[in-house]
């Protein structure tokens, strides 16, 4: 049965993981997301669904535990925040290279370095451009509410397994820490070992006499063969770009100005649009739900009739590069955002649009 609860975004991830039938969580504490593992350890799902929860010795170990779990066909996940995600980049590259599905939740805090524990959106590049070494992509989902923190756990797993590729929930300290009403899905059964062997014939479940041995690896020493493999990866990314773009539109029908914003910034920008419309400035919002694949086509399509586009993000300007690429120079694109752990207000966003795009009137 589904259930209505008031809870933090981080707690919602933990609840949703158990309810969607995840097999394992491996993590390391870091603010502002430690509630994910704390919630799991309190709920003790190994006694109910059989889900394994383990506190690892580091984020490096966590992501490699995901490699082992995913390589054997299980639905495994971790969560962390920016510095911890940086440590996972090696493992994510190996997982993309070995075509392993997993879910990683990044509850972003301000950087660089140890930075701050306050919310930020400055991990956009790291998330959508690959992050580790080599040519690869993560499937990146950007929740803007506690409800989406919960919903994107199962969606993330589904997409990860559909494409045999790591998926990431890219949220921030605000979504992770704030409490909202959330409808939790009914409990689903975990896959049985027999189902796993049937659904994922590539997984290392033990070599039966009736099949060849399964090998999970990302190494290929023959350059020609490795180029062929990379072509296969790229074909998969084109397929993801074709099929999995998700976004939400608000007030774009009559808009002169478009704000592009995800996650917390989208919530704040929605309030900014109301302020602008009260002043007679017709602004609309495009909220990318998938950051990779990015809704480039839709942004390009909308840009024809616009006077300007504002990319609003809690960073010094990362997503704005993809927005500019999308509009192909057809319309002016500006960036606005507070960063380093500072969250911008709706008024600041509204003022920025007026100053940067509407001639400062």
């Amino acid at each position, binding site marked *: 049965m589904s259930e209505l609860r008031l809870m933090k975004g981080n707690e919602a991830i933990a609840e949703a993981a158990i309810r969607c039938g995840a*097999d*394992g969580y*491996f993590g390391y504490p870091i603010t502002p997301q430690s509630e994910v593992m704390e919630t799991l350890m309190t709920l003790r799902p190994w006694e109910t669904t059989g889900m*394994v929860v*383990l506190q*690892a*010795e*580091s984020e*490096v*170990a*966590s992501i*490699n*535990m*995901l*490699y*082992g*779990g995913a*390589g*054997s066909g*299980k639905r*495994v996940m971790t969560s962390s925040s920016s510095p911890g995600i940086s440590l996972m980049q*090696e*493992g994510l590259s*190996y997982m993309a290279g*070995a075509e392993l599905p997993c879910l990683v939740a990044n509850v972003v805090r301000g950087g660089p370095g140890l930075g701050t524990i306050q919310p930020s959106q400055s991990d956009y590049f790291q998330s959508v451009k690959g992050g580790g070494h080599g040519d690869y992509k993560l499937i990146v989902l950007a929740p803007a509410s506690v409800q989406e923190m919960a919903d994107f756990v199962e969606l993330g797993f589904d997409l990860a397994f559909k494409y045999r590729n790591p998926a990431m929930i890219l949220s921030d300290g605000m979504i992770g820490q704030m409490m909202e009403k959330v409808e939790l899905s009914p409990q689903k059964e975990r896959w049985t*070992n027999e189902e796993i062997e049937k659904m994922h014939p590539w997984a*290392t*479940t*033990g*070599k*039966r*006499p009736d099949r060849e*041995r*399964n*090998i*999970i*690896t*990302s*190494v290929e020493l023959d350059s020609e063969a490795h180029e062929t493999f990379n072509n296969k990866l790229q074909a998969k990314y084109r397929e993801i770009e074709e099929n999995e773009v998700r976004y939400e539109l608000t007030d774009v029908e009559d808009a002169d100005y478009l704000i592009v914003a995800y996650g917390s910034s989208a919530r704040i920008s929605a309030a900014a649009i109301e302020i602008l419309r009260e002043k007679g400035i017709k602004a609309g919002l495009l909220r990318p739900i998938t950051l990779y694949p990015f809704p480039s086509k839709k942004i390009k399509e909308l840009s024809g009739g616009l006077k300007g586009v504002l990319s609003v993000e809690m960073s010094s300007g990362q997503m704005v590069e993809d927005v500019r690429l999308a509009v192909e120079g057809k319309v002016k694109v500006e960036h606005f955002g507070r960063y380093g752990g500072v969250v911008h207000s709706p008024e600041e966003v509204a003022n920025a649009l007026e100053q940067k795009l509407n001639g400062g009137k």
Partner: protein
Amino acid sequence: MEENSMAEVFNDIKKPENLVYSKSKVLTDNVMHYCPGCSHGVVHRILAEVIEELGVQDKTIGVAPVGCSVLMYNYIDIDWQEAAHGRAPAVGTAINRLWPEKIVFTYQGDGDLAAIGTAETIHACNRGENMIMLFINNGIYGMTGGQMAPTTLKGMKSSTCPFGREPAQDGNPLKITELLAQLPGTSLVTRQAVHTPAAVRKTKKALLKAFENQKQKKGTSVIEVVSTCNSGWKMTPVESNKWMAENMFPFYPLGDFKDE
């Protein structure tokens, strides 16, 4: 001997009733890429024999390292995961936790297990993960061309300590196996070698014990095999075995550290 009687002897040897030894069915027919004289081939062989003798080919999952044995999934016919450098114990941890009825082993060199992966090694052993860790210690980085390893002996030459390892500059050789024996999560901790038939038999016996321990869920079994790297050491295989006995064994003494 006459040519005819020679042919008779050869035909006689080939008769099934005269068969005294054959390659394990768990070993593939792929030609190994290892240098002649390298210990890896011997350890692979006895590992395959143990898997075959115990009848666990369908439930054993190996985790290969980064190092010369990175491609060992080509040689032993079981399911494999090839881990990032040093991360095999973390990879094995998850397989073990999620598939507790399987047998999991990692196979790692000295750089993998005792340098870049030290944290993963110690914590997997300290948690007592129910798996086997096979540790090939030849005191050098073979795959990358003979650089200093955490286990390179004092005074031993490598391409990154070309005048011999000097502790003041390079630090000291690490006896990680002794360290792992201190951890409550380990059950069997032993150091063996494969340079003589007797040593091969002892290593195989240790492996059988480790597989048995895993069946009984006794925690982590660590088997170090002091090994040769004649290419890295720039010696012939025979010289390498002699050098190992004279120089490696005094610092890395063979025997059991723990058998609980």
